[in-house]
């Protein structure tokens, strides 16, 4: 079973190099509040600037909660991340989906930022693997969706 990747674009005023820097190095400043997975609110989000670098959030007490890792660090044009947050919204080193960012010059001097989150069928396999446990993965992810759906009505 293959699921179509999520592809989203947004245009920003900054140059590709600056947009790449703001995206990667200043993630804590713009990442939506409450959309992190640590037990306590994050004070920073760290993306180590090289292939193989870690990607994690850190709370006020210094506790680090991993999100994934950097697979390719190619400023100003491309950033490839491993999203290792599974269907239970927990970090799982054995779970890996790819998130690729590209930063392309736009007509007006800004940058077209394209995000692609792929390998989504792995969420299904992961959810099925958790389905036999008490807090089954499938109900968890559908529960999360239900909360989202309720905000849309």
């Amino acid at each position, binding site marked *: 079973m293959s699921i179509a990747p*999520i592809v989203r674009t947004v245009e*920003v*005023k900054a140059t590709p190099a600056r947009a790449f820097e703001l995206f990667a190095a200043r993630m804590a400043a713009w990442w939506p509040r409450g959309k992190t997975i640590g037990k306590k609110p994050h004070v920073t989000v760290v993306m180590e600037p090289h292939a193989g670098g870690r990607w994690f959030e850190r709370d006020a007490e210094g506790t680090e909660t991993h999100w994934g890792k950097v697979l390719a660090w190619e400023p100003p044009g491309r950033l490839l991340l491993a999203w290792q947050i599974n269907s239970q919204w927990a970090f799982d080193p054995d779970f890996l989906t790819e998130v690729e960012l590209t930063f392309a010059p736009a007509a007006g001097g800004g940058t077209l930022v394209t*995000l692609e989150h792929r390998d989504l069928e792995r*969420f299904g396999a992961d*959810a*099925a693997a958790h389905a036999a446990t008490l807090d089954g993965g499938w109900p968890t992810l559908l529960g999360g969706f239900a909360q*989202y759906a309720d905000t849309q009505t």
Partner: protein
Amino acid sequence: MAKSQTALDSFAALGDGTRRAIFERVAARPSAVGELARGLPVSRPAVSQHLRVLKEAGLVSETPDGTRRIYRLDPRGIAAMRDWLDAHWVSALDAFKDFADEQADQETPE
């Protein structure tokens, strides 16, 4: 609301141990009723009944294969996950744009 009702149905559908075992097997490999019943300590009609519940909950789907029906994981379950994740990225990229443009406005262009 219809979608969240489905989510509640899914939760209830997996509340039964035998049903979870059937779901796991279907998730691991598309199977016919007979194959599923062979590995489980329940009758074939009982397996069919459980599959009906799983199907109504949107967790498995069936396709005909000659005289048999093959049950597999319903992609709609994953579609729900995808929708949720998609909405997450939309709000994250919107937030990124707001932040990046604010920074650009503060930096003197010339």
